[in-house]
C-alpha cells in the first residue's frame, strides 16, 4: 500500500497523537514500514485490519506464549544465502494426557531447564505440545494446568474436540497457547474459541494446499489473524516438497491465505534417530514449529546446533574482537597461543583452555572472521600478520618469555614466523582445539625448558 492509499483510511484530523505533525506524514512512514499503524489511536478496527493485511509481510509474524515466547514467520527468502532466515523454528516436545503426571512434571522441568552453551550463546528448547489422547476434558485440562504451572515455556493445546479445548483454555488461556487445530468439521467452534480467548489458531487440512487455503480463508474472514498451518505432510523426506510449495506460495506468489508459519510432526511415525533426521529436514526447509515425540539430549544438542547454523546470518561472519585474552588468570610466565577471530574458532579454543585449568594468554588476530585454515589460505593469517598483532598489542612487555604456540594446521608458517620474530621460539600446537589441554600439560613445559 502506498502512503496515499493508507492516508485514505486515516481520520485526517492531524491530531498529532501518533507523534507526527500530519496524518499524511504518518501515512508515509507507515508505507515505508518505519512505524506501525497501531500508533494511530483514532483508527477504526476495520481500517486497521485492512491496512495491516495489505502491509503485512509475506509470512505473518506469529507469537505464541507469554514469557519465553516462540516468534516465527516474517521470512522473506527461499534460500538463506539470498539474505538470511530470521526466526528460528520452535522445537517443542509432545506430552500426552495419558502419561503419568509425576513423570510429566519431571520431564517438563527437565526440558524447561535444558540448555547448551555454544559460541557464547545459550540454546534451548521452546515449549510443549499437549495432546488430548484420553478424549477426556478433565484429564486434558488437568495436564494443561499442571504443565503451565511448572514451566514458563509456551504450550500447544492439541484436541480436535471443541468442548475439551474450551475446558483447557478456560484455565490457561492467559498463557496464550497455540490452539491445535481447526479442521473442516470443527472450524466454526475452534474459530470462536480463538477469538474469545485471543489465542493463535492452527488450521489443519491434509487434503491439499487449495483446500487448506480455503479453510484458512473461512477462519480469517471470521476475524482470526494469528494462524499456523498444518498441511498434514507425510513423515518422510517427501515432506520437503509440500513445505517448499507453501514457502513459494507465500513469498513468490504473495498468496496471503498461505502466508503463515507451518507446524510439523517429524516424530509421528519414526524412531528417535529418524525423528531427528526429519526434524533436521524441517529446520532447513521451512517449518515454523517442530513437534518432537522424544526428549533425548544426544539428538537435541545436534538439532539445536543445526538450527543455529542454518539461521546464522550469512552476510556477517560471527567474529570476536582481535586482542589478547587472559585465560585462567595468567602470569607473565604463562604460555601464549595465537588463533583467529572467527567466533567458532575462538570459542572452541578458549573453552578448551579454560577447562584445561592452565593459565595462558590467547592472542586473537584480525582475519575478518575466518577459521584458521581458511584464513591462512586467504592470506589473512600469515607470519607477517601474527608478528604485527604481537606488536600491536604490546605482548612483549606483558610476558617475560619469547615463545608462541601456533595452531597445528598452520605448521608451514613456522619458518616465516621465526624470521618475522627474531629471538622467538615458535611452537607448533595441536591441530584440533580439544587437544590443547594435553599439549600444554605434556609438551609445552618440556619444550619451553629446552
Amino acid at each position, binding site marked *: 500500500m502506498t502512503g496515499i492509499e493508507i492516508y485514505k483510511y486515516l481520520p485526517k484530523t492531524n491530531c498529532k497523537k501518533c507523534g507526527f505533525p500530519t496524518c499524511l506524514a504518518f501515512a508515509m512512514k507507515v508505507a515505508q514500514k518505519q512505524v506501525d499503524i497501531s500508533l494511530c489511536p483514532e483508527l477504526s478496527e476495520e481500517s486497521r485490519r485492512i491496512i495491516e493485511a495489505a502491509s503485512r509481510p509475506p509470512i505473518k509474524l506469529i507469537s505464541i506464549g507469554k514469557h519465553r515466547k516462540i516468534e516465527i514467520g516474517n521470512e522473506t527468502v527461499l534460500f538463506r544465502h539470498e539474505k538470511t532466515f530470521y526466526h528460528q523454528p520452535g522445537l517443542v516436545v509432545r506430552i500426552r494426557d495419558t502419561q503419568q503426571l509425576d513423570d510429566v512434571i519431571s520431564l517438563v522441568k527437565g526440558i524447561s531447564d535444558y540448555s547448551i552453551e555454544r559460541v557464547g550463546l545459550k540454546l534451548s528448547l521452546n515449549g510443549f505440545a499437549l495432546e488430548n489422547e484420553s478424549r477426556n476434558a478433565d484429564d486434558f485440562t488437568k495436564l494443561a494446568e499442571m504443565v503451565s504451572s511448572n514451566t514458563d515455556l509456551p504450550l500447544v493445546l492439541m484436541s480436535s474436540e471443541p468442548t475439551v479445548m474450551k475446558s483447557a483454555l478456560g484455565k490457561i488461556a492467559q498463557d496464550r497457547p497455540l490452539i491445535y487445530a481447526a479442521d473442516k468439521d470443527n472450524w466454526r467452534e475452534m474459530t470462536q474459541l480463538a477469538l474469545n480467548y485471543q489465542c493463535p489458531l492452527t488450521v489443519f487440512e491434509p487434503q491439499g494446499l487449495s483446500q487448506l487455503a480455503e479453510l484458512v480463508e473461512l477462519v480469517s474472514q471470521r476475524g482470526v489473524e494469528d494462524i499456523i498451518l498444518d498441511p498434514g505432510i507425510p513423515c*518422510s523426506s517427501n515432506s520437503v516438497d509440500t513445505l*517448499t510449495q507453501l514457502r513459494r506460495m507465500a513469498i513468490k506468489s504473495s498468496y496471503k491465505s498461505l502466508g503463515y508459519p507451518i507446524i510439523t510432526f517429524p516424530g509421528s511415525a519414526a524412531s528417535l534417530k529418524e525423528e531427528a533426521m526429519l526434524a533436521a529436514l524441517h529446520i532447513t526447509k521451512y517449518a515454523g514449529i517442530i513437534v518432537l515425540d522424544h526428549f533425548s539430549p*544426544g539428538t537435541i544438542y545436534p538439532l539445536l546446533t*543445526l538450527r543455529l547454523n542454518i539461521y546464522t546470518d550469512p552476510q556477517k561472519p560471527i567474529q570476536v574482537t582481535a586482542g589478547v585474552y587472559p585465560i585462567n588468570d595468567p602470569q607473565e610466565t604463562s604460555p601464549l597461543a595465537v588463533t583467529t577471530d572467527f567466533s567458532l574458532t575462538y570459542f572452541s579454543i578458549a573453552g578448551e583452555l579454560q577447562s584445561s585449568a592452565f593459565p595462558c594468554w590467547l592472542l586473537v588476530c584480525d582475519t575478518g572472521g575466518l577459521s584458521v585454515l581458511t584464513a591462512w589460505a586467504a592470506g589473512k593469517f600469515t607470519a607477517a600478520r601474527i608478528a604485527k598483532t604481537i606488536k600491536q598489542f604490546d605482548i612483549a612487555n606483558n610476558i617475560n618469555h619469547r615463545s608462541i604456540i601456533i595452531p597445528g594446521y598452520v605448521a608451514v608458517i613456522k619458518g616465516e614466523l621465526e624470521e618475522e620474530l627474531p629471538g622467538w621460539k615458535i611452537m607448533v600446537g595441536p591441530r584440533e582445539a580439544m587437544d590443547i589441554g594435553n599439549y600444554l600439560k605434556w609438551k609445552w613445559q618440556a619444550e619451553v625448558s629446552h
Partner: protein
Amino acid sequence: MSHLGIPVEKWVGKVQEVKLGGNGRKSVVVGGESTLPFLHFEGSIPNRPAIAVEVQDKEPTDWPLQLLSAWGDVVKEPVSWARKAVEYGADIIVLRLRSAHPEQGNSGAKEAEQVVAEILSAIDIPLIILGTDVVEKDNEVLLAASEIARGQRVALGNCIDKNYRAIAASCLANGHVAVAKTPNDVNLAKQLNILLHEVGLPLNSVLHDPTTGSLGYGLEYTYSVIERLKLACLTGDEMTVTPIICTIGEESWRQKESRATEGIPPSWGAHEERAITWESLTAITLITAGSNVVVLRHPRTVELIKHVLEEGKRH
C-alpha cells in the same frame, strides 16, 4: 490444486550424470536431476544420492574408539573392511590411502597398487580412491592406483588446483573420474571445473568436493555453497553441473562432540547417540542442499541415511 497455481520453476539446466564402475562391475550413476533435492513435483530426480563408505588402507589411529568398535577387527585389514561395508549397504567404497602420507607410513606406489587391486577384486561395487592430500605423494600413489584400476572407472582424488593436470590426464588415459576439490567457494569450484574442461576432461568424469564443514563447524557455509552451485547449474551455468561429493564422516568424527566421552555437560547426552546424530544430521542437511554423494563412517549412519532416502522414494 491446479487453480492455486503453485509456482513451478522452469529450470533450464540439469546436473551432469556421472557413472562409476561398469564394465563387469556394478555401476552407480550419480547426478542427473533437473530440480532441487526432493522436489519431485517439479523435475526428474533419476538417481538418489549415493552412500559411500570410507575405508582406510591401514588401521586408523585418529578414530574414536566407539567408531572403531562399531566395525570391529576389519579395520585392521582393508579388504575385509571393504567387504563389511558392502554388507552394511554401501553403494560405493571410498578407499583412503592413509599409509602413503609422509608422516603416517610413507608407503609408495607399489603398496597403493596392491591394496587397490585387492579391493577391486574383492568387491563388485564402484571405488573412489582418495590420496594423502600431499601433492607430490598423491602424484605417485594416485597415478599408480589409476593405472592398476584401468577400465574399472574408479574416481580419483583429490584433484586440486596444484595437481589437476596430472590427475586429469591419468583419468583420461585410464577411463576414470576425478574428484575435484576446492575450498568452500562457488567461484573457485567453477574455476577448477573450467580448468579441467580446458585440459580435455569431460565434466561427465568429474565429481566436485566443495569442502565439507560439519554440523557446528562450518556446515552453514558448505550448505550455502552447494545450494548456490545447484541453483547456478539449474539456471544454465554449464561449469557448475558436476555432481557434489561431501566427506561427511571425516569432518564430523573429527569434532569434539563426536569424540568426547568425559568431562562434558550432561546436556550433551549419550556419546554414541550424539556422535551418530552429528554425522547423520550433517549428511541429511548437505543432501538437502544438493550433495549427490555422501561419504560416511559409521554403519548406523549408513543405515539411517539409506532408510530416509528409500522411504522418501516409496511415497
